[in-house]
Every structure is written in structure tokens, then in C-alpha cells.
């Protein structure tokens, strides 16, 4: 889905932290990475950087609070919301169990209705397929519907290398593209931008933006509209993703807010849809569940303005050539894991991002993947498992499962009930286990081993507690420790630590029992 919602009106401080003053300089804080699922520093270091941007935090806090409120209001008015979530979760579980059969059925039905189905094992294959189709149509420009699958494979950059310009037509996606930036949210990719930055980006990069463009949202939208209209009318090929693919009928669905998707899906002669293999639903009726869950969870709307459904090719109406590229790119690895597999249930609504207290502070770029936030923390490491995403501490993606306090807000809002905290914990265990084979000394492992020995026996634990009381004096006159040596210094940098008490509870209880309790 896509929306204009949440673009903050606050001006970013003008110390040049976001760059972009010279015309050729990229506006984006994140230049295009080679791997859209693995870029930049490990999460703690990347977050440290983004946390310094107070304005970004204020923008994000404002935007996510607004979306959270809207979502809560429209979800609250659905009396059978929990039943709907259960239904959504059950359908997706069935899809994962029957995936091979359902995919074959989808292929059969799309083909029967005049479409062409392609299978792509990875990003490179998918990119090659799309390029070949565009080349065959002699297109040097394609229009695009916002799609996470094509972000994931870096399609735009690949097409550019091949001399084909891919034009993003979703407003927020266009902003990100014009700025040479990376998305920071799966629904509102330019959520890290404010109005005046958008005006500057349009003025400098859009080519046909009015000279006197202001930062009023309506004017910005109108400028983009005029710019895109020309592209819609001239493009021969469109590329889209898909929110759903119906196995029984071969129908594809795109859900959106702006109408740009409808333009792309109906005007060009050729349509290429890149869809992750997990986006299936078995029957047309199943859409009933998801078309209720998705808009309320993502934009906080009762119903999204545009839902486009198409089945193969309809002579004389819409694109006369339709290609469906079914993308694996690590998904079968995810499917193979009993616990992690439910990450594939995700319908990309972004509700988990909007409620995540970590995402709200650090923003999307800190996750170093086109999938940020809670869903990114469980999906990115799994999708990149074959290239080391779950191989332990030497891969930056291994820091992602730890990018959460396990507060559970994501699980509460997820429309398909993905138990994100439990998957995070499971992935942590997989990371730690992968590291076990390494000989390198891991201070965490040493500490955890020692703690395990102490904490698995009441006697040893009691002795340790008594020993700790000797530290009572460390607290000084007011009983707190303000400067501790590493690793506890990570704590005392911003928090005091209480000094241990004079007497542990265990010691008190022994005396209390001797006194025969209070009674």
C-alpha cells in the first residue's frame, strides 16, 4: 500500500547534516547499497548514528504517533477483529503448508488466462527476466508501482545499469528515488523526510517542477502528479509487485491509495509483476479477510481508495502482455524453519513498524535493509541466511534479532498474528549457536556460562548473593553507583545503579522463618 500520510511538516535543522546543497550531490543519507538486504554498520552502531538526528526523531515520533492513533481507532470499531486476525493467520499457515501445490495452481491459472509465468531463484535471475522483457519491448523507460519485492532485488539500479530508467510513481517512493536515497519504511518510504526537503528535492531533481514550488503538501502532490502523468502516457512497460496472488483463479491484486498503481496496471501495453512466492492465497474468497485486515492495519483507513485485481490478459482492455515473475530469493530457506517460517505470513502492512518503540527512535535506515522495524529484524537475517545472515557475529545482519526489547507491541498489532518476539528469541539462539563453532573468545558466552553455573543452584546463588552484599559500601552516602567499569559502564553512562543491599532476601527470609513468620 502507499500513502501520502505522515510526511512531517517540521523543518529539519539546516546544518547540512542531510546534505544535498550542490545539484549533483545525493540528497540521501544512504547511497544505494550493493545489497538491498545488507548495508551499513551493525545495528547498534548504525542506531547510534541515526539517534544523533534529533529532528529525525521528532519527525518519526510525530508520524508514527499519528498513524498509530488512526489504526487504533479503525481497528477498535471492528467487533470481530480478533477473529479476522485468526482467520488471516490460519489462511497463511495453510498457504505455507501447501505452497508447492498452490504455486503450481497459480502458474496453471495465470497461463490459462494468457499470462506468462517466470520463476526466479534469486535477485539476479529476477532482474535478468525483467530486463529481457523490457528490452524485447524496446523500452528505455518503465513506470513502477511501489513494490517491496523490487526494492529487495534492487531492480531499479539493475535496470539503470542496463540503460533502462525505472520511474517510481508512488509519491513517497518518487521522493526517495529522486533523492537517490533508500526507503526507511515499508509503507511510507520517505517518512524520514519533511516537506521543505521534499520541495528542495523536487525543485532540483524533478526537471519539470514549477520554479515557485512551495512546501504545501497539495502543491507538492500536484507537481508530482503533473510530472507522473507524462510518464504514464508515454510508458510502454509497467513493473509492479503484488499484495496477493489467488491460486485458484490466477488473479493478482494491488492495494493502494494514490491511483498511480491503477494507471500503471492499466495503461502500458506490457505489465510485469514481481511477486514473492509467499504472497499467495488459495481462493478468491480469502481476499475478503485480507482486504479488511490490510487497510485498517497499514494506513488506518477502513478501506483503501484503490484495489486493482487482474487475471491474465483481457483482449482489448488493459495490458495485452502480462508476465508474472515468482521470486524465491531466500524464501524457501525461511519456509524450512519451523519457528521462523511464519515471518512469511507478513502482508507488509507496516503496523509493527509504527508501534515499535525502537523503530520510532532510530528510524528505518539503522536496520540496513529495505525491510526495517520488527518485521525486518526477523525477515532480513532469514532471507540472507544462505549468504551468512544467520551465521553469527561476523555478519552485520546477525545484530538485527537483538534490535528489540521484546516488548511485544508488534505481536499485538500484527494483523496475521506473527509472534515476532518469539521468532526474535529463536533467531538469537540460532546466531549464538552458529558462533559456538568458532574458537574466538566471546566475552558474552563466558559471562553467560558463568551465570548459568551460579543461577542453576540455590546454594551457589545464595553464596553469590551474600558476596554481592559486600559491595553495599560502593554506593556511597546515597546508595547509588554512578560510574561502573565496563561492561556495566554501558549502563551507568545514562543510568545509576543501586548498590547491593546489606542483606539479601534469602538472608532476611531465613531470619523471618526462624521468627515463625509474623503470625
Amino acid at each position, binding site marked *: 500500500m502507499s500513502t501520502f500520510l505522515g510526511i512531517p511538516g517540521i523543518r529539519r535543522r539546516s546544518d547540512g547534516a542531510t546534505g544535498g546543497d550542490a545539484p549533483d550531490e545525493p540528497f540521501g543519507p544512504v547511497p544505494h547499497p550493493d545489497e538491498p538486504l545488507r548495508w551499513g554498520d551493525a545495528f547498534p552502531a548504525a542506531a547510534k548514528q541515526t*539517534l544523533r538526528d534529533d529532528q529525525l*526523531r521528532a519527525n518519526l515520533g510525530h508520524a508514527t504517533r499519528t498513524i498509530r492513533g488512526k489504526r487504533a481507532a479503525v481497528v477498535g470499531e471492528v467487533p470481530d477483529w480478533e477473529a479476522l486476525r485468526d482467520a488471516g493467520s490460519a489462511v497463511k499457515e495453510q498457504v505455507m503448508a501447501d505452497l508447492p501445490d498452490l504455486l503450481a495452481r497459480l502458474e496453471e491459472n495465470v497461463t490459462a488466462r494468457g499470462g506468462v509465468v517466470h520463476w526466479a531463484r534469486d535477485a539476479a535471475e529476477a532482474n535478468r527476466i525483467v530486463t529481457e522483457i523490457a528490452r524485447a519491448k524496446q523500452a528505455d523507460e518503465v513506470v513502477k508501482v511501489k513494490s517491496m519485492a523490487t526494492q529487495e532485488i534492487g531492480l531499479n539500479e539493475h535496470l539503470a545499469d542496463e540503460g533502462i530508467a525505472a520511474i517510481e510513481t508512488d509519491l513517497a517512493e518518487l521522493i526517495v528515488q529522486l533523492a537517490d536515497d533508500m526507503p526507511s519504511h515499508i509503507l511510507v518510504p520517505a517518512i524520514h523526510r519533511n516537506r521543505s526537503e521534499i520541495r528542495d528535492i523536487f525543485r532540483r531533481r524533478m526537471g519539470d517542477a514549477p520554479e515557485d514550488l512551495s512546501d504545501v503538501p497539495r502543491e507538492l502532490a500536484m507537481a508530482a502528479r503533473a510530472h507522473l502523468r507524462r510518464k504514464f502516457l508515454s510508458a510502454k512497460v509497467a513493473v509492479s509487485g503484488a499484495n496477493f496472488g489467488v491460486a485458484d483463479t490466477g488473479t493478482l491484486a494491488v492495494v493502494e491509495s494514490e491511483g498511480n498503481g491503477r494507471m500503471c496496471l492499466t495503461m502500458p501495453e506490457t505489465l510485469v509483476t514481481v511477486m514473492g512466492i509467499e504472497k499467495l492465497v488459495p481462493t478468491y474468497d480469502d481476499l475478503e479477510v485480507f482486504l479488511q485486515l490490510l487497510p485498517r492495519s497499514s494506513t488506518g483507513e477502513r478501506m483503501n481508495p484503490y484495489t486493482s485485481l487482474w487475471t491474465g490478459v483481457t483482449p482489448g482492455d488493459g495490458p495485452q502482455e502480462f508476465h508474472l515473475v515468482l521470486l524465491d530469493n531466500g524464501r524457501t530457506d525461511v519456509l524450512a524453519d519451523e519457528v521462523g517460517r511464519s515471518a512469511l505470513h507478513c502482508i507488509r502492512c507496516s503496523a509493527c513498524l509504527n508501534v515499535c*518503540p*525502537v523503530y520510532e*527512535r532510530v528510524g528505518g535506515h539503522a536496520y540496513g535493509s529495505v525491510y526495517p522495524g520488527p518485521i525486518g529484524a526477523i525477515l532480513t537475517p532469514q532471507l540472507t541466511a544462505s549468504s551468512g545472515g544467520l551465521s553469527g557475529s561476523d555478519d552485520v545482519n546477525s545484530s538485527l534479532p*537483538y*534490535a*528489540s*526489547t*521484546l*516488548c*511485544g*507491541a508488534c505481536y*499485538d498489532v500484527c494483523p496475521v498474528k506473527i509472534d515476532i518476539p*518469539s521468532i526474535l*528469541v529463536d533467531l*538469537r*539462539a*540460532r*546466531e*549464538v*549457536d552458529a558462533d559456538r563453532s568458532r574458537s574466538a573468545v566471546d566475552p558474552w*558466552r563466558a559471562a*553467560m*556460562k558463568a*551465570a*548459568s*553455573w*551460579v*543461577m*542453576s*543452584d*540455590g546454594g*551457589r*546463588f545464595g553464596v*553469590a*548473593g551474600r558476596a*554481592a552484599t559486600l559491595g553495599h559500601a560502593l554506593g556511597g552516602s*546515597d546508595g*547509588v553507583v*554512578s560510574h561502573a567499569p565496563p*561492561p556495566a559502564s*554501558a*549502563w551507568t*553512562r*545514562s*543510568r*545509576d*545503579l*543501586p548498590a*547491593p*543491599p546489606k542483606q*539479601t*532476601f*534469602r538472608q*532476611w*527470609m531465613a531470619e523471618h522463618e526462624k521468627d515463625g*513468620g*509474623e*503470625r
Partner: protein
Amino acid sequence: MRIALAATCIADTLFPGAPRATVRLLERLGHDVVYPRSQACCGQMHINTGYVDEAVPVVRNHVQTFAPVADGEWDAVVIPSGSCTGSVRHQQAMVCRRAGLDDLAATADAVAAKTYELSELLVDVLGVTDVGAWFPHRVTYHPTCHSLRMLGVGERPLRLLRAVEDIDLVELPEAESCCGFGGTFALKNADTSAAMLADKTANVRGTGAEVLTAGDMSCLMHIGGGLSRERAGVGTLHLAEILASTRSEPTALPRARSGADSVEVAR
């Protein structure tokens, strides 16, 4: 009732006030409290940090320590912590099964079925909301994430607090947002954790409360550590310490560093 107390490792060693108050409160309500001395820790820290192999002996010790509750030796196990209760209920059996210890997993499930967080025990099992407490101070309540979402304790702690005589209970803005503790998250992602904490302490200070209370000592250690560093003049008490307070045996206001104290400037 005969109630076995799992004091939690952190309160046992660092915050004995919370389990002491739990004992005082339950005894005042006419129950027997037993403290099985072989207890140590529920294993949550190891599990949530990914050290599941290392968690196995810790979990085994907890399950074996409290196994008698499954045979009726005690009527219930109480834990004055939402997150430790959550770990007992949602993680321990999983850890046992992952290690191939199916019998232990079955025992863990049986123990978990009779294990309650303090507010659950009081409201659901013992059927009381007015525990006869008196605490004449301004208090605000932070619903900890695991008690709120993993256990779903809902309004129970607030119902208990509202029944306390002379309490001035004030609402905490954005109460349900996480304080940024997250166990080892506070160390592994210290900067993000501190950013979350700063928002929480600002909200706490805005209430004008003298005391911040919650059902988890770990979260209180975190928020309290922030408040202390900021010299906010707000102290922390576990929910049990407020509920244990009476006219004849009042719980003293906790020591709270405030701007009036000397030295060091906050951050």
C-alpha cells in the same frame, strides 16, 4: 493457602524489599508463604540473549524447585514479576523441548499452570482487590511490557492500587510504551535504550508523582536508574511494597535523588 514464593534472582540479590513486601502482604491476608531455598532464577536472561543451552540447567533448577506445586504440596507459586512469570509460562517448556527433555517440559507446563504473577494471584486466585493497604502519597504506575502483553494482567494492578487508602494515583502519559530495558538490550543497544528511557522518565516527571511503581523490579531498576541520574526526586517501589503498606506498618518513601542533592549534573 500455602503459597510458594519465587523471589526472582534480581530482587533476591538487589531489591529484597519487593519479595519481603510480598511475604508481609500475603501473610497479612492470612496465607502461608514458603520460600524453597533451592531456587535461583527462571532462566529468562539466558533465553532472551540467545544462550538457550546455558539456560537449560537454570530452567531445570527452577522447574524441579517448584515441581511440588504440581503434586499439591503448595496451592500456587507466586512471582512478583511479570516478565519472570511470562518466562515460566511461555518459555521454560520450550527450552526443555528444544533440549530433548520432554519429561521436564511436561513438569514445566504443570508448574506454569499453577504459577501466577502477584496481581493475578491476588485478584484471580485470592479474589481480593482491597488488600487493606494505606499509602498516603502521589503515585504513578508503569505497566511493564511483559505483564501487559505477555500475561495480559490488564487493569488488575490498577484495581489493586485504586483500593489503597489515601493514595493519590495519577495517570502516566504514554504508559504503555516500553521503557527501553529489555534485559541485555540495555547493554547491547545502550544508546537506543537510553533514548527510550529519556522519554519514559520525562513522562514520569511530568506527573509530579513522588513514587513510580510497577510489577517488575527489573524495569523499575532501569527507570529508577534514569530518574536517579536526572535527580528527578522520584523514587521507585514495587507494587507489593505499596500493597504491603499499612497505617501500623507503613512503607517508607524510597530514597530519591533530587535536584536539591549535591554534585554531578545529569547527563
